[in-house]
């Protein structure tokens, strides 16, 4: 029991690897919600001068209806019977540490986006590399100093100098 609570590689939650039924139901619900929103937004697209037989709404409305129909089909299938198991369908189990690491990395990337506005690209990117490598589990001077400096230099040379991208 102690292992389960302290082991960083333990599954985050039972939803870390969704069950077979949930793996169909959740995307079905998400697709249905997306289709409904798309249909509502499509119905608000201006009709225009109706130069042609079909208005600009026609295609997105048709697609939204189709996606809605398919999502209902998927949901009903998930509820009525066990779905066909396809080995490659089963995602590898997520770990609690992985979930934290991913969240922290995404937050770091957003922070980098903000930082880029205020300080030089080379400095902000160097800091980003250090942060990402540290969050990924890298330790020691090679991982946290040598690697970030080398890769930032390559990145700057490639994009900033060679391809003349205004960084």
């Amino acid at each position, binding site marked *: 029991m102690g292992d389960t609570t302290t082991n*960083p*590689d333990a599954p985050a939650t039972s939803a870390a690897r*969704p069950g077979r039924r949930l*793996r*169909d139901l959740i*995307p079905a619900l998400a*697709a249905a919600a*997306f*289709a409904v929103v*798309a249909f509502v*937004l*499509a119905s608000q*697209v201006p009709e*225009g001068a109706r*130069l042609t*037989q079909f208005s*600009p709404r*026609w*295609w*997105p409305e048709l*697609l*939204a209806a*189709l996606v809605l129909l*398919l*999502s209902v*089909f998927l949901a009903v*299938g998930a509820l009525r019977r066990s779905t*066909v198991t*396809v080995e*490659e*369908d*089963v*995602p*590898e189990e*997520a*770990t609690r540490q*992985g979930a934290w*690491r991913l969240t922290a*990395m*995404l937050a770091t*990337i957003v922070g980098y*986006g903000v930082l880029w506005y205020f300080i030089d690209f080379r400095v902000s*990117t160097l800091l*980003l*590399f250090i942060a*990402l*490598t540290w*969050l*990924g*589990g*890298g330790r020691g001077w090679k*991982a946290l100093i040598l*690697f*970030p400096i080398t*890769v930032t230099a390559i990145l700057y040379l490639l*994009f900033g100098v060679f*391809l003349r*991208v*205004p*960084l």
Partner: protein
Amino acid sequence: MSPIVEGFSALLDPMILLCIAAGALLGMLVGAFPGVTATMAVALASGFTLSLEPLPGLAVLLTIYVSANFGDRVPAILINTPGTPASIATTFDGYAMARKGKAGLALTSSAFASAWGTLVGIVLLMVAAIPLSRLALNFGPAEMFALVVFGLTMMIGVSGGRIVKGLIAGGFGLLLATVGRDPITGTPRFTFGASELSDGIPFIAAIIGLFGIAEVMNQILVHRKGRGVEPIKDFGRWFPTREDWRTMFKPLAIGSGVGGVVGIVPATGGDIAGILGWDQARRLSKHPEEFGKGSLEGLTAADTSSNSTLGGSVTTTLALGLPGDSVMAVMIGSMVVWGIQPGPSLFANQPDLVYSIAGIMLIATVVALVISVLRMRGVAKLLELPQHFLWAVILVFCMVGTYAVNNSVFDVAVMLVFGVVGLFLKRFGIPPGPVVLGLILGGLAEGNLRRALEIGGPANILTSPIALGLLAVSALALLAPPLRNAWRARRARAAESTTTATS
């Protein structure tokens, strides 16, 4: 000047040769890292190649495509993990050979088989591309719409048992393609007043997010310390003997045939071809019992077949405008930005491009073969590199590469959003390929369908034998797998009830 001379002489530019060298190194590296697929690498490279001229840019992307299909054999043979999906079948016999102390022979034979397969594909490209595009030039809106549906359903049809999810993914992609201006009237749709969306969703950003960022996010999410197989260190002898070459002859022929045919079918790639080629060689072998236990025949057939698809995929992509596989779906995005619109008129207007592309692939094959034969031991060392270096590099290169396309932070935000969407798709078993295909082909599908219906109503489609044929094959591709499963289940139930009744 003849298109052949013109096409090949365009490659004499040192810049192109430099791009091929860079692409070969990059391709070998990404192929050798399990988890970095050729699709992801090409998506990543799209970011910085867009600043180049079309031909050098194509040289980088095509060479990555070719050489990743050499590099991916290394982890497949040494740690039983395919470097990219195209080397799944390599693991069947490659790893078994390595465990028997024949890793060196497996690596070298695999490289020769892969090179032979790629060459067969290139010949196919040179022979079939122009006639195929001339045939497709006669297509009107009805046929073009049917062709797009055909491409989309082929990609969905090969998504294992995930037909409904594949269809939803395709529909999602087509809906995303409606963002921007209406293709006929120019009316803005779903732009919410943002000028960045008036040309539609930036698809390079979307592709990098779906294939690059999503994959890394998933790896971070599921990563466990100390997991993985210790790479094989005992390589044994490296070069095939005359006897080995004799053994390889038949599977080379079988693999070339299977891969060539599979490559021409839109959306089917080396993964499927490798497995089919391996299976076909097993059926026709004098020693089928050795397959899966370290058979040189099995390894050769799998790798030849897998790489023979490359030329076919490029042919379908460029001649018809339909991606031959997921890498080509990504590459179409870059081509469109360069002003190269893949489709029937491309080769009719620029026949020399066929030979330039074939030449790039030919040089790339030779370079990849040389690297494979000389530096396999070095590439094998890469398998010991910790994953956190790779994650950091991919994440930052994806961001800066996406920014570089339009110098737009908006594109980077789109890429991150698509990364999260891609992670969701991955976790819930929804194939991302149809989303990309829908996003790329959506405008073509809508424009042609509306034109076809405006011209002559539904009869315009229903009276075209080509359109009807393509739509019929599409329907068959979607219906065949579930019908086959139902039939098998019924047979199993019938067999079970017979057994019960007898006992």
